[in-house]
């Protein structure tokens, strides 16, 4: 839940208040570091991710209002988790291409990361508007649970019915997203 201290954090970031930034580091960074450690990362990776998240959030605060429904800590943690996921995908891609390449800050696109995060927030909000069944079905589908298992878990008559249900839920989600004013801002 969003509390007074959370709005202090936001205000401090917006104003570049160094004391607030240090408090944010002290209170939140250790959790992000633990998460990155557990997910193939090092201390330096955690620092980079955390710094980027704070920078991107500050840019958003300067340009527009940012609505946070959870606590500030949970919000920053989610941002970091998403950034780390993007970074891991990026690294995987380079490993696949068998090229050794260091991700330099020049190549790092903050604006792209901001848009991805905002899309994530929009999609997350809309998923919560779907029926509990649709939400569970989509999550199962994207966790790559087989249609055979989905049929059993959701008690559908056949794999074709399961496919149709997944398809309908996804379309409902797409329709909800398209109706939101923010979609225009964030699309392509």
């Amino acid at each position, binding site marked *: 839940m969003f509390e007074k201290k959370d709005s202090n954090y936001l205000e401090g970031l917006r104003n*570049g208040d*160094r004391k607030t*930034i*240090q408090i944010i*580091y*002290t209170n939140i*960074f250790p959790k992000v570091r633990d998460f990155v450690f557990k997910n193939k990362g090092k201390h330096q990776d955690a*620092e980079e991710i*955390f*710094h980027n998240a*704070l*920078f991107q959030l*500050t*840019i958003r605060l*300067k*340009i527009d209002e940012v609505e946070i429904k959870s606590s500030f800590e949970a919000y920053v943690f989610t941002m970091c988790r998403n950034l780390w*996921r993007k970074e891991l*995908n990026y690294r995987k*891609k380079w490993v696949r291409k068998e090229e050794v390449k260091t991700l*330099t*800050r*020049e190549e790092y696109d*903050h*604006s*792209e990361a*901001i*848009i*991805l995060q905002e*899309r*994530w927030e929009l*999609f*997350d909000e809309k998923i919560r508007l779907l029926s509990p069944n649709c939400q569970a079905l*989509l*999550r199962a*589908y*994207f966790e*790559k649970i087989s249609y055979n298992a989905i049929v059993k878990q959701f008690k559908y008559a056949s794999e074709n019915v399961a496919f149709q249900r997944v*398809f309908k839920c*996804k*379309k409902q*989600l*797409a329709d909800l*997203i*398209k109706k939101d004013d923010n979609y225009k*801002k*964030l*699309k*392509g």
Partner: protein
Amino acid sequence: MIEGEIHEQIERFLSGAMSDVEMKQFQKEMIGNSALQEEVALYQSINFHLNEDVEDDTISDNSEYNRKLKEYIGSEQGEKIQAILLEEKYKYHNGLSQNKSSKRIFYYVASTAAAVVFVISFFFLKYSEKDLYADYYKIEELPSFTSRSGKSSLLTSAKSNFRNKQFDKSLSDFNEYIEKDAEGVDPLIYIYTGLIYSEKNELEKAIEQLTLLENSDNIDNTRAFWYKVLVYLKFDKKVEAKEMLSFILKDPNNYKYKEAKEILEKL
């Protein structure tokens, strides 16, 4: 195609379930059909959101919002935000701020105590040169440059590498910049090259670079004194730092006059 079919096609396209022929046909259909392109992009984006292995590469550099963000990030304000956050990141990393604040709190408590305790505390808690360096070195105060044509990108890269602590890369960018047009060099870059050598623990070279600024005709050449102060503080060279401070204090119009007075008192 009716709506349901289109979405099924999109699903098959994105999941790689189409045959080569189908794929080519679908791609052909997408060309010139912006509504279809948009729909594919949205579904791809949803896949990214729900599936950790999928990459969302549907963000266009040309969207109005993306341009607005890029413009702000590249602006002076954007750079300042970046600089402040980087500085605080390093501070946290080095544990400097915690150490410093606890010393200060102790100082205030001690100042209200008995005179003897105060005197002892004063000697005990005196600022070290390194503390002063950490207090007064502000990365966001480093100069920005305007340069002609192709050289500006070298300076941007040099600055960016500097801020990211890629000092060797930054130095190589600055050297390339100097080589390109030795006569047109902005002497303020020697602040950066001086600080780079300082970071590389090469005191003499650091001072040498800052002397190049000091001896230049640049209107801001007295900044060299200030940065020499900082470098000397970093290397615990109190006597040399005091000498530079005395140069700054000769003229109240000199760069960082007020701060020079403060440091001298603390030293």
